[in-house]
């Protein structure tokens, strides 16, 4: 259990704002409102892509000492998320983890685990438990 009194936050990063928003909507409707949740997607011109700045803003909007689990889709979403986390600096960056899990299923699983007050490690492990399937 987290000892900060707050639930681990979830950030969804997709190349498509519609995928990111739709995933966030599924989390809200299926899991509920007790988990801090943010999403971002698309580049500044409205096309497909991800932005380090948008990812940083999303992470900051839900960050607490309990930590943040990040769900990503393809290549650039992951590398830009890694960059955004790196820029956070120590020790904050150590409380933000990218999950090796499918974005939609991983977000729902992670949020379900987080809603019960689980630690960041437990939340990430739950999302990643999906991967071998």
């Amino acid at each position, binding site marked *: 259990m987290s000892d900060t009194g707050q639930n681990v936050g979830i950030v969804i990063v997709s190349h498509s704002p519609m995928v990111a928003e739709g995933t966030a909507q599924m989390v809200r409707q299926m899991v509920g409102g007790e988990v801090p949740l943010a999403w971002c997607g698309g580049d500044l011109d409205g096309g497909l892509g991800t932005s380090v700045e948008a990812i940083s803003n999303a992470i900051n909007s839900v960050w607490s000492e309990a930590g943040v689990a990040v769900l990503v889709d393809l290549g650039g979403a992951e590398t830009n998320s890694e960059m955004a986390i790196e820029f956070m600096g120590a020790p904050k960056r150590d409380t933000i983890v990218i999950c090796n899990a499918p974005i939609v299923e991983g977000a729902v699983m992670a949020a379900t685990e987080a809603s*019960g007050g689980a630690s960041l490690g437990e939340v990430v492990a739950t999302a990643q438990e999906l991967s071998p399937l």
Partner: protein
Amino acid sequence: MVAQTDIVITHRVGLHARPSVKFTKLAKTFDCKIEVSVNDTDKWIDAKSIVKIMGMKAPAGTQLHIRADGAAADEAVAALHGLVERDFDERQGAVPADEKIADANSA
């Protein structure tokens, strides 16, 4: 303290995505160890694991065994029994979007 109950899943799409989330979230509100098994397989799985509960893919008509061991075991079993009995509180109102998808896929 140990408690156990059996109940048949009557929700028409079974222990699907949203019902699994509700079941797991409710289980997590209790400190005791809670496990479930289906159709007398004697394979008990952690009721607080969303991945394992959803992974059971238990359809309507499944005989669900729920057992709890520890603090408030009776209350935990009664609460989960009630949730399954009430069709996960989805008996009334519009069909949620994820179930429409599930129905379409099973058709």
